[in-house]
């Protein structure tokens, strides 16, 4: 299926956020990251269950320098 990850279109077969992160080489256990799908925050505890669907807009964030 096609979805967007941080604004970039990607093709993936990953059914959940957890699998998508692992597939991209991102440790889903690391602290300091959060995920929203279609403008809704998905709690970490749900990353293994929340199903990804065609056209989903996935945002993966962390803390950067800020004032």
């Amino acid at each position, binding site marked *: 299926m096609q979805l967007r990850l941080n604004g970039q279109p990607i093709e993936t077969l990953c059914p959940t956020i957890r699998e998508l992160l692992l597939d991209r080489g991102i440790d889903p256990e690391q602290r300091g990251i959060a995920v929203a799908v279609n403008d809704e925050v998905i709690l970490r505890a749900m990353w293994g269950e929340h199903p990804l669907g065609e056209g989903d807009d996935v945002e993966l*964030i962390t803390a950067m*320098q800020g004032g």
Partner: protein
Amino acid sequence: MTMTDNHITAGSALPGDDPFTIAGRSYTSRLLLGTSRYPNPRLMIDAVEASGAELLTVSIRRLNLGDQGAGSILGYIDRAKYDLLPNTAGCYTAREAVLTAQLAREALETDMIKVEVIGDEDTLLPDVEQLLKACQDLVKAGFQVLPYCNDDLITCLKLQEMGCAAVMPLASPIGSGMGIRNPYNLQIIRERITIPMIIDAGIGTASDAARAMELGADGVLLNTAVAGAHHPVEMARAMRMAIEGGRLAHRAGRIPTRLYATASSPTEGMVGR
């Protein structure tokens, strides 16, 4: 949700002063420091250390998928020593600010949020209508809301009324270094609200920070004045001392200003009269 333990030493930097309490947490330092625009991370950490600040602002941005370490600040900050205050910088609508705050809470395990909703990219002045809406939603969602706002009494009263943890009126535009443009507005806000007032944005040098504290501010939030100084670590220390000096002067109670001189030496027993 597990919130970060309050590991900061309660008490004040000044003997006899009240601790600086915000959102139920007590801090020794009344300086909140930004982590942006330093020449390098080492200088950032050294400046933070020299400043004495215990509450540091960070932004929320997309993870770099090509290089996960790139730009992330969490590797540099010891969270056992410092609390993080995430911001919603770059948001232009209440909806964006609320989503950013929710992501920040999930990523950083803190319920504190500095709410910025910008209305214009050249001045970075707040969009008050959108700011009020975002703050209302976030207070209802259980956040400890610290809004960056105009130096406007009515806005500050509304923010207090809806349950914000503090108000953070600007001294002058973000990053301008112009210092306090309207001290009378800030003085009026301090006199009329009961929640903490933190002066946020526009501080250029140590005397600006001292002045903010003399006006009665409970704290000062700054970034560029330190990060952009020729010697950020020295400026961080200057800010720390200025804020302590300004706070002490405020508590001491300054003399009234007069148009004419008042002799400080005795006027009786003058030689030859």
